[in-house]
C-alpha cells in the first residue's frame, strides 16, 4: 500500500533506509529541519543544512522513486539561542522558493523557555508573511502537556494563520483533544521509546476519528524506525480495520494537509502545459 511519511529526518538516515521505505510503499516524505544532536557553531552552518535539505536529499530519495519535501526553520532544540535564531531566520526566505520546500517547520517548543516562545513567535511571523503552511513540534515527556497548551494559546492569540494550515505534531493521549478541538491537524509520531506505539496511535484514532490526523515515523539519528508507518498499517489490519481507513490515514490525509502548499504534487492532477492532465507521481513507481 502506498504511504506518505509526513515526518522523517532523512538527512540523518542511510541510503538503505530510503530503500526500505520505498520497498514498503513510501511514495513521498517530508523532512523537517532538525537539530544535529549538537548545537551548531554559527548560523552559517545552516546554509549547508538547507542546501542538504533542498538539493541533496531530493536526489537521494529520487533514486528509489520517493519524492522528498522539506520544511525550514531553526529547530526548537536550538531556539533558546536568540542570536542564532535571528541570524538563521534571516537566511530562510531565500530558500522558500526551492521546489521541495513546503513551509515552516518543525517549529515549536523544547523545554518551554521564554526565549523559545519568542523564537516560535518569530517563526510564526515568517510563516504569516510568506503565507506558508506550518509544522509544529510539541515538547516531549513531562513538557508535552504544558508546551502544547502554550503553543495552542500562542497560535490562537496570533490568529494570522488558519488552524487548518497548521499540523501540531507529536500528539499524545493528553494533548490530541486540545489540538483537534481547536481546529488544527494532529500528528502522531511512532517512536520506539519516547513517543507513541502503533497500538496507542490506533487507540487515539478510534477515540477521536480518522479526520485531520496523520501518523509518521519521525525517524532521525536516535532509536527510531524508518518503516514505522507500514508497521502501523499492519497493526491496523491486525485490529480488523478496513483498508479504506488505513489508506485514509497513511496516504489521503497527508495529501489533504500537504496539498495546501502548491509545491506538494503527490496525488494531484497537474496540467502538463499543453492542456493535458498528467499524474504527478514520482517517476519509477
Amino acid at each position, binding site marked *: 500500500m502506498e504511504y506518505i511519511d509526513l515526518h522523517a529526518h532523512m538527512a540523518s538516515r542511510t541510503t538503505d533506509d530510503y530503500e526500505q521505505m520505498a520497498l514498503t510503499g513510501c511514495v513521498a516524505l517530508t523532512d523537517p529541519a532538525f537539530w544535529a544532536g549538537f548545537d551548531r557553531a554559527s548560523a552559517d552552518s545552516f546554509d549547508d543544512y538547507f542546501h542538504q535539505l533542498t538539493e541533496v536529499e531530493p536526489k537521494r530519495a529520487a533514486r528509489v522513486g520517493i519524492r522528498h519535501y522539506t520544511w525550514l526553520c531553526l529547530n526548537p*532544540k536550538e531556539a*533558546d539561542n536568540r542570536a542564532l535564531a535571528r541570524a538563521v531566520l534571516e537566511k530562510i526566505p531565500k530558500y522558500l522558493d526551492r521546489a521541495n520546500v513546503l513551509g515552516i517547520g518543525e517549529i515549536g517548543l*523544547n*523545554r*518551554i*523557555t*521564554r*526565549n*523559545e*516562545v519568542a523564537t516560535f513567535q518569530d517563526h510564526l511571523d515568517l510563516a504569516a508573511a510568506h503565507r506558508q503552511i506550518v509544522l509544529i513540534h510539541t*515538547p*516531549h*515527556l*513531562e*513538557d*508535552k*502537556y*504544558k508546551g502544547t*497548551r*502554550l503553543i495552542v494559546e500562542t497560535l490562537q492569540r496570533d490568529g494570522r494563520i488558519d488552524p487548518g494550515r497548521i499540523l501540531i505534531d507529536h500528539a*499524545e*493521549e*493528553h494533548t490530541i*483533544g486540545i489540538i*483537534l*478541538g481547536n481546529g488544527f491537524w494532529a500528528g502522531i509520531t511512532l517512536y520506539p521509546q519516547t513517543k507513541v506505539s502503533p*497500538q*496507542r496511535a490506533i*487507540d487515539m*484514532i*478510534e*477515540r*477521536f*476519528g*480518522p*479526520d485531520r490526523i496523520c501518523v509518521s515515523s519521525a525517524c532521525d539519528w536516535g532509536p527510531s524506525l524508518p518503516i514505522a508507518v507500514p508497521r502501523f498499517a499492519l497493526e491496523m489490519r*491486525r*485490529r*480488523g*480495520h478496513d483498508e479504506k*481507513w488505513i489508506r485514509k490515514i497513511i496516504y489521503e490525509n497527508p495529501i489533504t494537509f500537504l496539498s495546501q502548499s502548491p509545491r506538494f504534487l503527490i496525488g494531484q492532477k497537474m496540467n502538463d502545459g499543453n492542456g493535458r492532465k498528467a499524474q504527478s507521481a514520482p517517476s519509477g513507481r
Partner: protein
Amino acid sequence: MERDFLACPLTGTRLIDEYFIENRTRLLDLAAFLDRLDRAADPAADADFRMQAFREGLRVLCGSSGPRVERIQRVFSDPTTEPADGLDQKSACGAYDHSKAGGA
C-alpha cells in the same frame, strides 16, 4: 469532544485473544523492574521524583476504569503554565520534579 468515531472491530474476547500474551509480558517486565529496584535497596531510588511519579502512575493504572493513559500522562506532566526564565537542560527526563516548584 471525545466520540467513538472509528470503533474497534474486535470484540473484547478477540482483543484478549490477540493481545493477552504481549501485555502479560509487559506486566511481568514492569514487575521485574520494581523487584530490581527493591534488590538495589537504595533509599535514593525511593525518593527519586521520577519513581514517585511512576508509583502514582501505577496507582492510577490499578484504580477504577476510565481514560487511564491520559490520567497517567497527566501524572508525569509539568502542571505549571509559565515559560521558564532559562534553559536548565536540553532534554526532558520523563517526569516533572515537583520539588522545583516548591512541592506544588
